[in-house]
């Protein structure tokens, strides 16, 4: 058991979220046609925080949440604990959807989320925003917006909330 190590504090997280919000606006030349989709469970709070920041800087964008547990590639291999029910109250066709997750690790959750999102419609583009990229990808997936690149070993746990980022 490794002692928990705080990597980012609440202020660092707030600054990272603000910077990512700016980057999302800049990359998309405004937020016309942009929607945020938080991945259950961990991406939902971050999508809400990003939406708050984007609304402060520019104009409000639609925010939804997506549960990808029925699309995972490890169904039957480990217990499934679905988060809250998916809630996408907007048309996905033709939008630029920014998938949001707290920690990017193997990329398998994002792969499942891409499939889940495709069942709601055909976005013009999909981008990926994560608070922490901890490496160890097992699929060809890369994030577009990153709060913090964090070298880790595969056995470590990374938790990322508004209160901070902790490795244990």
């Amino acid at each position, binding site marked *: 058991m490794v002692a928990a190590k705080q990597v980012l504090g609440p202020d660092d997280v707030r600054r990272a979220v603000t910077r990512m919000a700016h980057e999302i606006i800049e990359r998309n030349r405004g937020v016309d046609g942009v929607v945020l989709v938080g991945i259950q469970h961990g991406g939902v709070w971050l999508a809400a925080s990003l939406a708050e920041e984007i609304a402060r800087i520019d104009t409000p964008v639609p925010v939804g949440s997506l549960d990808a547990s029925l*699309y995972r590639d490890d169904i039957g291999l480990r217990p499934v604990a679905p988060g809250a029910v998916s809630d996408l109250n907007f048309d996905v066709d033709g939008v630029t959807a920014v998938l949001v997750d707290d920690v990017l690790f193997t990329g398998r959750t994002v792969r499942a989320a891409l499939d889940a999102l495709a069942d*709601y419609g055909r976005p013009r583009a999909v981008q990926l925003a994560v608070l922490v990229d901890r490496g160890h990808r097992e699929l060809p997936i890369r994030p577009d917006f990153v709060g913090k690149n964090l070298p880790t070993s595969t056995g470590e746990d990374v938790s990322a909330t508004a209160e901070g980022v902790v490795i244990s």
Partner: protein
Amino acid sequence: MSTRSLLTIDDLGTSGIMRVLDLADHMAEVNRRPNPKVPALRGKTVCNVFFEDSTRTRLSFETAAKRLSADTMTFAASQSSINKGESLRDTIETIAAMGVDAFVVRHKSSGAPQLIAGWTQASVINAGDGWHAHPTQALLDAYTVRTALSRTGGFDGLRMAIVGDVKHSRVARSTVQAFRMLGAHVTVVAPRTLLPPDVGDRFADAVTDRLDDVIGDIDVLYLLRMQQERMNEALVPSLREYTTRFGLTPQRAAMLGPQTLVMHPGPMNRGVEIAVDPAELPGAVITQQVTNGIAVRMAVLFDLLGSGGPIAPTTDAAIDVTTEGSTE
């Protein structure tokens, strides 16, 4: 011996019921989409084995399996080698050898699904056996009440009356059990001839033969199907007398509280247990029960086949268990 099965509500326990109902919320969301299908059970095979006629339950299970991308096979006893004298066990073992992950079993004999679970490693889901149990009906009933009354946390304080032929009803057995496990207070309303022998505290919280005494003070009125055969057995004098004493007549409908749900497992005998048009009852959720049945059966299939329990065996293993099963 099956590793994971759903034979009675007891197999789930209270926490299992809650888990399946939570999962059903996810499945209901899938069903509301324009393309109601997810890849969750790709590569799994579900075999419906129906030794007794059923339309809605069989179609409901078949739809549920397909919406989870499982492959389905249907075995109807009437068109099978059963008519050539093949035993139940040989039939099941033959189908199992084709590589089946779950059997959905309907049988007129109580206990048949349990026997089958002893002969195969595939999961077995009881889709109704004799007078014994119908657990997925109980789950869809609970899910319907939970969504209609926003009772996500359970049924503490909920008052339900279940009316009719409780004695011969597997629906009554399973539904009463599930509702009580979730905290509801259940009153059985039936003529004495249609009460099961164990109707005391073990079966329900209260028993009466006077529907009018309870109908104004309940959250859920559950009407059971009155089967014509019971008349022939002289358990009820006549259908008309049954309706007068136990049917939902226009007079009784007026006594229902504005929020009281009216439920029926189907198929309805209009003019017998329900002598009003359910479309005109504001609390009728009979159609929702059918719709919710698909989401709940998807949840059960996913819980058994996709939740990380021991994986159903390959064809070879299914043959191996025949010896192991015989010790049961």
